[in-house]
């Protein structure tokens, strides 16, 4: 099976998933992102004209503020023209098919699509249908993938931990419905993290999750023991109504990250979250704002990582 993300030269054509993303390309993205971060100022991101004259279309079939905004900032720092479209509230509700929408946007001379969609596989579907000079970045498709989030997480881990080969990483929460968790797991395994744990009740874990290369824990204190990195997942509100969980309170009691549970991890463990956070449900405020938390640097690095992805895609030869 051809890897739909690579062109015939083996270069990144689309960024759809961290699964099947070759290690050298993954490393390139992280290195390139580092070049956009101004080292002197620690976390400042530089402006560069790499995408001058290019049009980046943020096509969001599902609402998002944070991800769309960081993509927009990243594209603007690369001097691209940015168009934001919230399709969720326009075309499809008028009965236009996804392909018609995409064809119309292509006719507006888009160079790059940043796509978010509620259906798993939507970004692959769009990538299959666009002309070869157009690049697609998956900004989240259903439960499947959210590769730029995972990449910025990898960047953050590397920033604080330097290496991957000696780490123990725990992912906590609703893995079943999480595109972030899937993308994180693939990226971590590619980068050679020897021990990846997922911690959740059985109702929030997909079938055969171990086959992704993770160890399953249902007890948070055990799962967090001696870990270097804690990746918290957002718990969607609707999960608290169905049969997946009895209540937010009970979830917080067993799977919310508190100071007490955090103490099981290594003393220098870092705590990450893709946002937006539910304080008091999956994470205690004192942890979210505490000295282990790197949640805000994640957001800043996210801009550099998205700049890196966009500049690499636009550099691919057609």
């Amino acid at each position: 099976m051809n890897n739909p993300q690579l062109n015939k030269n083996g270069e990144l054509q689309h960024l759809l998933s961290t699964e099947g993303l070759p290690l050298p390309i993954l490393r390139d993205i992280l290195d390139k992102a580092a070049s956009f971060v101004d080292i002197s100022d620690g976390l400042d991101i530089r402006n560069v004209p790499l995408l001058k004259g290019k049009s980046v279309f943020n096509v969001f079939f599902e609402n998002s503020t944070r991800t769309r905004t960081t993509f927009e900032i990243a594209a603007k720092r690369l001097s691209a023209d940015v168009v934001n479209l919230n399709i969720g509230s326009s075309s499809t509700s008028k009965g236009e098919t996804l392909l018609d929408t995409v064809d119309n946007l292509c006719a507006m001379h888009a160079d790059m699509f940043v796509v978010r969609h509620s259906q798993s596989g939507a970004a692959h579907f769009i990538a299959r249908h666009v002309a070869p000079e157009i690049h697609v970045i998956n900004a989240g498709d259903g439960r499947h993938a959210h590769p730029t989030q995972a990449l910025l997480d990898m960047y953050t881990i590397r920033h604080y931990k330097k290496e991957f080969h000696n780490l123990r990483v725990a992912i906590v929460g609703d893995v079943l419905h999480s595109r972030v968790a899937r993308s994180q797991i693939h990226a971590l395994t590619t980068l050679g993290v020897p021990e990846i744990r997922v911690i959740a009740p059985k109702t929030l874990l997909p079938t055969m999750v171990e086959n992704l290369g993770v160890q399953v824990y249902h007890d948070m204190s055990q799962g967090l023991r001696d870990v270097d990195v804690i990746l918290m997942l957002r718990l969607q509100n609707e999960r608290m109504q169905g049969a997946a969980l009895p209540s937010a309170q009970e979830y917080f009691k067993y799977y919310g990250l508190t100071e007490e549970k955090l103490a099981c991890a290594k003393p220098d463990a870092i705590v990450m979250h893709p946002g937006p956070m539910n304080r008091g449900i999956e994470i205690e405020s004192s942890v979210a704002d505490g000295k282990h938390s790197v949640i805000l640097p994640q957001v800043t690095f996210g801009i550099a990582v998205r700049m890196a992805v966009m500049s690499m895609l636009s550099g691919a030869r057609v």
Partner: protein
Amino acid sequence: MNIHIKNGRLIDPKNGIDAQQDVYIVDRRIAAIGKAPPGFVAGQVIEASGSIVMPGLMDVAARLREPGYEYKATLESEMIAAVAGGITSLACPPDTDPPLDEPGLVEMLKRRARSLNQARVFPIGALTYGLKGVELTEMNELTEAGCKAFSQADAPLTDTRVLLRAMQYAATFGYRVWLRPQDSFLAKNGVAHDGEVATRLGLPSIPVIAETIALSTALQLARETGVILHICRVSSAAAVDMIRSAKREGLKVSCDISINHVHLTEMDIGYFDANCHLAPPLRSQRDKAGLRAGLLDGTIDAICSNHSPVDDDAKQLPFAEAEAGATGLELLLPLVLKWAEQERVPLLDALAHITIKPAQLLGQKMGHLSVGAHADICVFDPKTSWKIEPAALKSQGKNTPFNGYEMQGRVRYTLLDGQIVYQST
């Protein structure tokens, strides 16, 4: 017109014949096998040397999409596809729009099919009105109109008491009940097998227990009511095991499998190939092995195309939004041959799954080439290689997970009631 099918290899599973024998057709029926009947003069000779002569295929599940879904397919287009695939009889599920729940609709369908004079159509009536799972249909009237069995197609029947009543009523008159077992709560919103691939791709899933729990209910109700129960489109190894035990116990139960499940697994979904969005879902490698074992030991009676043509607009969507279904009428025979070759199944046994066994499931004395039988015949060349190209298919549905597959075996002639209704060019 008298027809002489000459020099072919005759394979007739019902009569256990696999030998070079000529077939003589007089007055639309098989007049003799081997030796010409006295005074026989051929109006037409079909030279079949190198070809296999077999009973016309019987397909127990082919959606013709009429009435109601003519934009997906029409009776005209699908009957041409059927005979091009060597199929002379097919059963169509009741999930048309409106569903086949009243005699007028069934009569109209039969009349339309008859006027086309290609394949025979055996309608499966709706078990409940509108397939809603609440009120029983008039099974006697529907049977008189031509229904051969009663089914919910893929529509759920969640009220177990209604299912019990339906089976009791059907059993009263000896009618057949066909069910595709799937617990609708466990299958809710699911689009792929609950396993490795759905986990990796983040697709909402349907677990095997959705099939086995509903199957367990159906088998227990069959034991209770004595109904003749047919299980449609088994998809899991566990379901095959349950049906094997039920048969051993002596329940009047039979089952079929779609040709897609004989060959494909969840892995074929690859990167969200919507052509592999099927109902029931493609399951694991282990399930496929269990299904094939069920075919070999006779637990699974028939192989069907589960022909479900879908229009392009409904398939050109992200995986979960794409409509389930695949075209299959023209692929059934070559895919059965492929399976037989892979598993080294003698053709005499393999072809029984698409001739005599489906005929028995429909209660029809057909699917064989005994002297006196209607001359429904398929003549195919087992050596012709061809590649599946959707655009070349005669069915209006072009969607197939077998796109680009190399096939061996191609239909040369299809005869219905002693008349040539298809001839390859």
